[in-house]
């Protein structure tokens, strides 16, 4: 079956395409900012899902790739005068290379050991960057306003950044679908279900896992660059926030791990909830506790997440809700 004839292939892409397109037509700053945040988490959660959902490996410290890639891209823009696009791609590439090196060591670990190791990597990266002179140490880096001039001023630069994020999100979703429905992806799913049995059937698990880790690290590196460029500065406290990692996990689990649509649904729902909690005076300081609680409830009662649950109940919708 050809994938472009499948409704499940088009649905996530069409939703994001329309959403981003409408925002670009409306041209309103507040809508752009809200959408930027939701789409950023969609793309981050989808990247994480390529590893978590397809191979079953829980990367608890995945935000490290957002941080390191973001720092690198930001450095290239603010200190080296690179344009945004190549800088963001370089940020992604750096995250990919780090994942390759780190992956060779930590992907041998399974289950909780792997999850713990990824937290360690995030903390090590934070400590390193905080003491790394070229990245500005603990104070971080600031972008010179002249960098925005290239894009027609700060206001226009924000729209350019948004457009790039929109395209990146579409690419992540495309890659997620293609990985899932490829021979390579079948091998990953076999690893997720039973790694030893998969290897006995000929799946080259070490290689497949490393490639997947690199893919799932590449996109957060791009997204990090866009995010920090939009903010105008980057510092260790913003780049390596473990709670963002946990929120990414919640989004994937909420929407449904191992599905293409799930992380999108999860990111949108979680951001909506979060927006509500942050404005409510009682919950303002509790949103992380709520995130933890949601995670617990999902794992206990709906481990398949929203999309997985619907797919299980209504098999007729399986080809639509991938």
């Amino acid at each position, binding site marked *: 079956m050809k994938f472009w004839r499948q409704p499940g292939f088009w649905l996530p892409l069409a939703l994001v395409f329309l959403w981003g397109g409408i925002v670009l037509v409306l041209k309103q700053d507040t809508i752009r900012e809200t959408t930027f945040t939701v789409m950023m988490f969609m793309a981050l959660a989808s990247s994480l899902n390529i590893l978590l959902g397809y191979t079953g490996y829980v990367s608890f410290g995945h935000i490290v790739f957002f941080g390191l890639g973001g720092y690198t891209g930001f450095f290239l823009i603010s200190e080296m005068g690179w344009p945004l696009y190549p800088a963001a791609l370089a940020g992604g590439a750096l995250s990919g290379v780090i994942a390759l090196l780190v992956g060779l060591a930590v992907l041998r670990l399974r289950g909780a050991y792997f999850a713990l190791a990824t937290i360690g990597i995030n903390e090590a990266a934070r400590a390193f960057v905080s003491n790394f002179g070229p990245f500005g140490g603990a104070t971080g880096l600031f972008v010179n306003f002249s960098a925005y001039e290239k894009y027609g001023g700060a206001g226009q630069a924000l729209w350019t950044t948004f457009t790039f994020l929109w395209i990146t999100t579409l690419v992540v979703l495309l890659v997620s679908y293609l990985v899932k*429905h*490829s*021979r390579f992806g*079948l*091998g990953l*799913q*076999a690893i*997720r*279900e*039973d790694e*030893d*049995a*998969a*290897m*006995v*059937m*000929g*799946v*080259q*698990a070490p290689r497949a896992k490393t490639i997947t880790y690199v893919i799932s690290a590449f996109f957060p590196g791009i997204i990090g660059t866009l995010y920090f460029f939009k903010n105008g500065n980057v510092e260790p406290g913003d780049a390596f926030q473990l709670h963002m990692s946990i929120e990414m996990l919640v989004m994937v689990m909420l929407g449904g791990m*191992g599905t293409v649509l799930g992380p999108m649904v999860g990111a949108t729902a979680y951001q909506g909830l979060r927006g509500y909690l942050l404005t409510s005076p009682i919950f303002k300081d509790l949103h992380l506790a709520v995130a933890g609680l949601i995670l617990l409830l999902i794992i206990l009662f709906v481990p398949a997440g929203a999309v997985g649950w619907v797919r299980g109940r209504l098999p007729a919708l399986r080809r639509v809700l991938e």
Partner: protein
Amino acid sequence: MMILQVQDVTKRFGGLQALTDVTFDLPAGQILGLIGPNGAGKTTLFNVINGVYAPNKGQIIFRGDDITGMPSYEVARRGMARAHQVVRPLHDLTVRENVMVGACFGREGHSLASAVQKADAALAQVGLSGRADQPSGLLNVAQKKRLELARALAARPYLLLLDEVLAGLNPTEITEMVDTILKIRDEGITILMIEHVMQAVMSISDRIIVLDYGQLIATGKPEEVAANPQVIEAYLGDPEMTARLMAE
């Protein structure tokens, strides 16, 4: 031609000597039965042969190549497939997708499209065609055993390792499975099978080897092995087994 040569294989788990100097050859095209009491080291021998564990000592030669210490996926690609004692279906995948894993990553390394056909052929061969679209978690024990077999067959192996594929089956299911195994042999696939169901293994094996406490204590034609006093003694701890063995 010898498809498999196992030479002086020793495997230890900490202080436990699971295999001691095991040596045997397997000519292509035959069915070799591997029997022995519980805990004798049969499954461990499979694990060493197909690369799940590296032996502490000794060599495994497969189709003339030394494969000792190779990872299990490399051994699989060279044409050795295995059905596990504890069935391990990939639960979230459908029955067909499970078998496609074998076709995609086994010896012939099919693309997804051609793997679908290979998977359906393997499912037909083991009589599971009707279940192809079900999640594999929903199968009963007998069907899961057939799924294990189909996955291994879809890899189009030269050598098939079967670990107790008859265990837990009722007499009718055993007869069906034995028929399937004989047909596989007739296609030219060599089979090494671990089995506790004596009557079946005695009737279909060309030769039998017997493992006891990690050592090979007998090898020969089924009737020779059944009459071997050492073999009978090995099973003495298990009176029911002994009775069944003597009844042959």
